[in-house]
């Protein structure tokens, strides 16, 4: 079996004095959608930030195409791995077009700051996210769903073959959540993009993931197909959640139905 493009080997990640993830191994399956789930503070975002080189490992290593990601030139990494942080912020008044054009930064040099290739990539990223007609609008004036699409569009303009998204659908209503996930899935099917996402919604995670990764206390406790991972035992062990798991009548993927306290009392 060939080596996956993005891997973590015994990686140790943390902030200041606090180690969040210690000695973790993680292979990202190529050209598939991997979704990381887990309770708050379990280290999902930390792991994603480490994989995306936003956080330098304290130990072990993150490997991109077999090379240590923190030793590679930063621009090379940015041309291969696109990262969308959890709550990105743009300066007031920045237009969508300008934001998306920033995604071309890793492809530019001080002597050649804008090329026809850049223009094409930006036009593509805007049209695939349905943002072309909003290119002139300021990012801070958009609705939550549009803003998230604008940021995804910027990440797409980077034209990377790997995409790491940290909670891309938080704060969106259900229709917009599905909208964004459909877009990500289409990228994956049409362009073979490898996607790693952190999601909180277990049912949507199960529906869109090829591989589901469950984390708890900085460790990966389960990894595999959604129906293998998302079991009633796991929900109880990892999330401390009393729930029933049934087959989703729409997609056939696991559907988590929490058993709330007042229902338990009645039973």
């Amino acid at each position, binding site marked *: 079996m060939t080596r996956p493009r993005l891997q973590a080997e015994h990686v140790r990640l943390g902030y*200041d004095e606090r180690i969040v993830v210690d000695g973790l191994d993680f292979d990202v399956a190529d050209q598939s959608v991997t979704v990381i789930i887990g309770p708050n503070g379990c280290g999902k975002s930390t792991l994603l930030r480490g994989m995306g080189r936003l956080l330098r490992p304290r130990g072990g290593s993150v490997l991109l195409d077999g090379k240590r990601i923190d030793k590679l030139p930063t621009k090379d990494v940015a041309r291969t791995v696109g990262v969308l942080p959890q*709550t990105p912020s743009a300066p007031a008044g920045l237009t969508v077009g300008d934001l998306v054009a920033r995604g071309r930064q890793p492809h530019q040099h001080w002597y050649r700051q*804008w090329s*026809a290739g850049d223009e094409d990539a930006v036009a593509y990223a805007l049209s695939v996210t349905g943002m072309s007609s909003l290119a002139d609008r300021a990012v801070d004036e958009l609705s939550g769903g549009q803003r998230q699409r604008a940021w995804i569009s910027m990440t797409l303009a980077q034209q990377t073959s790997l995409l790491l998204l940290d909670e891309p659908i938080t704060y969106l209503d259900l229709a917009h959540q599905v909208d964004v996930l459909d877009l990500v899935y289409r990228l994956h099917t049409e362009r073979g993009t490898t996607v790693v996402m952190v999601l909180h919604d277990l049912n949507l995670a199960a529906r869109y993931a090829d591989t589901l990764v469950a984390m708890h206390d900085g460790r990966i406790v389960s990894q595999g197909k959604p129906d293998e991972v998302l079991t009633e035992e796991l929900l109880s062990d990892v999330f401390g959640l009393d729930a029933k798991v049934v087959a989703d009548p729409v997609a056939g993927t696991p559907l988590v139905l929490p058993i709330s306290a007042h229902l338990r009392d009645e039973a």
Partner: protein
Amino acid sequence: MSAVRNIEAVPGRKQVRLGRLAWSLRPRSALVPAVCLVLLVLVAALNIGRGSSDIAVLDVLRTLAGGGDHAETGIIFDLRLPRTLAGVLVGAAFGLAGALFQTVARNPLASPDILGITWGAGVGAVSVIVLGGSAGQVSGAVAELGVPLAGLAGGLVAGLLLYVLAWRRGLDSYRMVLVGIGLAAIGHNVVYWLLTVGDVDDATRATTWIVGNLAGVGWEAIGPLALALALLVPVTAASVHTLGGLQFGDDTARGLGIRVDRARAVVLLLAAALAAVATAVAGPITFVALATPQIALRLVRSPQPPIVGSMILGALLTVGADLAVRTVAPGLPVGVLTAILGAPYLIFLFLRTRKEARA
């Protein structure tokens, strides 16, 4: 087919292509600096014309172009040009320094005066003035060259201190502003302490310098100033393309392949050097570095302070303020006017920020 064509691949971003190269065309980002440049030439000519015997603007322009009579050529080139030229260069340096600080700090409050850079330069320069006078042993050429050099050194030390003290696993912009305000307060007080140490004459000389003054600047200061800018401005221009990414959060900037901490350090050091060089020549002309980038940003309607626009507008503001002061109250240093303008602007900035935070 012509080599240059206009296309509109991305809606709202008209652009010009030449072979494989393309630039997005923004009328305002070219128009505003152009208009400011024309105004600058006019104001500069007016300012040069001012003096014991006024010279008309057209005569000044003709003389500068090499067509003036002997007397006017002598007056303008030997006596009057250095003051205005210094205003242009110093203003441009302050404008650029302010734009860089504000982009790195992502904060419109960040400017060399607020962050203590100019006060660091002040400590250096005033030390030499005071110690170079009757109270100290420094004299002659050292005192002559020493003021600008010590100012430069002081400003750079302040910039370095700012970076080191604000650093804690990365450079946080909010911490940088707070540390800078602290540094400015210290610099402030050291300067005043130095004034009490020196004798009255030195203190008077130092005070004029502290306020910011273009009156005394001669050709001997223009050379080093122009040389420093000729070195610093191209280096800045080459590092400008990372500035666009630095305006985002750290994670986004890193995701774009920018080495955030190194890029910030480079830009910060360049900005400190520009501010220090300018302060060394003319003293801290407050408000120029603070307001120029924000005004330029609004005129150009760009999301971050424009580099060229800030330079030209900084020069225009400085020379304009000098002209205004000379017209209204001859003999008053230019820094007095900019300080009077600066205080209400600062209050406006605070009020506006609070409103935005609430919205």
